[in-house]
């Protein structure tokens, strides 16, 4: 069973049939660096309890969109709203109690241990004064367990493999225990098994009611593990909807310039592309 017939691109910003009210919404945001605009009047509403994948070629603006959703980049116009309130009107630590962000690149101080890194995830909940005491709490333990790095807790980051280190960073984001999780290319540095572990973890977090928005490079992983796929190109949303509606030969050609067939994944039934 193939569906290689070209299908037209779905219209932009089709509201997805997802449960729950929007928890995080970009409302006509224009975002740029210095004199280059990356996003222009872009809108995206993310429903609570869903997993959304942002896909697109390099330079399409997906990381910029994620940074704007995380209030790391302030929009020049428009607003990102959390439960209807513009992020700029909320204290930054209050936002951090609701939204956790795993950026694409970060630096760890020399000699830091996994536990010390994960403890930083407690900063928004405990506050800077309480953070002056070194304490472990249940949230840290949960985050270490869920990412499979509990046995590495007292190791220095410098002594870990790239994948172990990446999981420690994810543990830090989970330790924030927010209801929204933003991940910028979380599978980078991970081997295949740990990529799948991570994506399954994302699925479980979603099932528990967390809202996840992640930038993914692997379209097949996006189709398989996200409820909704949003494709960007040159700062605009060009396709948005359920994986079946977005991962199509027409989109692959139009957005990624790949000539491909799309078949249902034999395990999940989600669309899976194979280059021709």
């Amino acid at each position, binding site marked *: 069973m193939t569906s290689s017939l070209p299908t037209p691109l779905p219209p932009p910003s089709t509201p997805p049939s997802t449960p729950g009210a929007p928890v995080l919404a970009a409302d006509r945001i224009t975002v740029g660096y210095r004199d280059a605009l990356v996003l222009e009047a872009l809108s995206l509403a993310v429903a609570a309890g869903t997993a959304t994948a942002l896909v697109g070629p390099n330079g399409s603006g997906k990381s910029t969109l994620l940074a704007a959703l995380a209030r790391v980049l302030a929009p020049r116009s428009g607003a990102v709203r959390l439960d209807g309130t513009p992020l700029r009107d909320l204290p*930054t630590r209050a936002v951090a109690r609701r939204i956790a962000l795993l950026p694409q690149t970060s630096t*760890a101080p020399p000699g830091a241990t996994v536990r010390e890194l994960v403890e930083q995830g407690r900063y928004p909940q405990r506050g800077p*004064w309480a953070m002056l005491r070194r304490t472990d709490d249940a949230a840290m333990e949960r985050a270490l367990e869920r990412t499979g790095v509990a046995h590495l807790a007292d190791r220095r980051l410098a002594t870990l493999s790239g994948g172990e280190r990446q999981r420690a960073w994810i543990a830090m984001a989970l330790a924030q225990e927010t209801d929204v999780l933003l991940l910028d290319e979380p599978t980078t540095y991970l081997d295949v098994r740990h990529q799948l572990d991570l994506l399954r973890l994302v699925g479980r977090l979603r099932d528990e009611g967390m809202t996840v928005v992640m930038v993914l490079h692997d379209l097949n992983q996006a189709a398989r593990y996200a409820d909704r796929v949003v494709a960007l190109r040159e700062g605009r949303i060009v396709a948005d909807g359920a994986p079946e509606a977005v991962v199509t030969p027409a989109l692959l050609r139009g957005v990624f310039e790949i000539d491909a067939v799309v078949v249902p994944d034999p395990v999940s039934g989600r669309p899976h592309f194979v280059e021709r």
Partner: protein
Amino acid sequence: MRTLALAVGAALAVVALVAAHLFVGRSALAPGDVAAALLGHAREPAHEIIVLRFRLPRVLVGLAAGALLATSGVLVQAVVRNPLAEPATTGVGSGAALAVVVSLLVAPGHPYVAVAALLGALAAGGLLFVLGRRSLALTGILLGAVFGSLTSFALVLDSAPMGTVLRWLVGSLNARTTGDWDAVAPWLLTVPLAWLLASHMNAWALGETTAVGLGVRRLLTPAAILGVAVLAAAAAVTAAGAVAFVGLVAPHAARMLVGSDHRRLVPAAAVLGALLLSAADLVAFAVSLELPGARPDVAGVPVGAVTALIGAPLLVHLVRRSARPTLQERG
């Protein structure tokens, strides 16, 4: 346990250094004489003057300036996230030296050299705040270079203040008085203040994006860290001159002993900086005693000429022992 051992070791080292400073000098005093003078019933008036007016202020000012330099170093390294930064990166020391030169040119031989240094240091720090929004480290280094050039120009116009200024530029603890100790002591409050910023610095260390994601204030937090760094550096420079190396090597050595968590790093670096500067000063003073015809209390070897001689081998030893990467990306 390890923390306790380090704390006890540090306390013993401080006591040993203070004792050594109190005994070393041109007049050989018996331990009983020193103890008696310290306790306020000296057997001879000269003992009291030697111990309480000369030797004790010198070691106390040295310990304080070392702690302040190291604390400033930790803060500056934290705010620019670069382990090669140090108090001199802020340009504060050069600002102090320039102010000293200018004040001595305007009013030769005036007694308010320390006041001029403090004002110059604070003015340089203020200028860094105004100009350094985009690139803090680069701005600080450039400010330092400009102040250095202006200092050279001033000295070419009139070389009379050369001796005073040289001691200021190199850093010296010679002839410190109780007044110097009284002036520097309140600034030691910047050490606990720096510790209160430890959790902010820990979060800031993860990079600006991650830190903002954790709820760190993007402008206020680095400004607060830099502000305390400038105050500590200004106080240290005022007390001992622009001593090189302590503000760089003490944070590094501390990081190797207790790790990069600022909650431990700040106190560890402060203690190590105090020990390092005061030990270097002991060496400087002892060498001065051997120089023919020198008056070691006033015009002896400046401590700044010795700090690198002691600090550099220490750093090399620690680096070789731990063989740890100094900066590390996530990947």
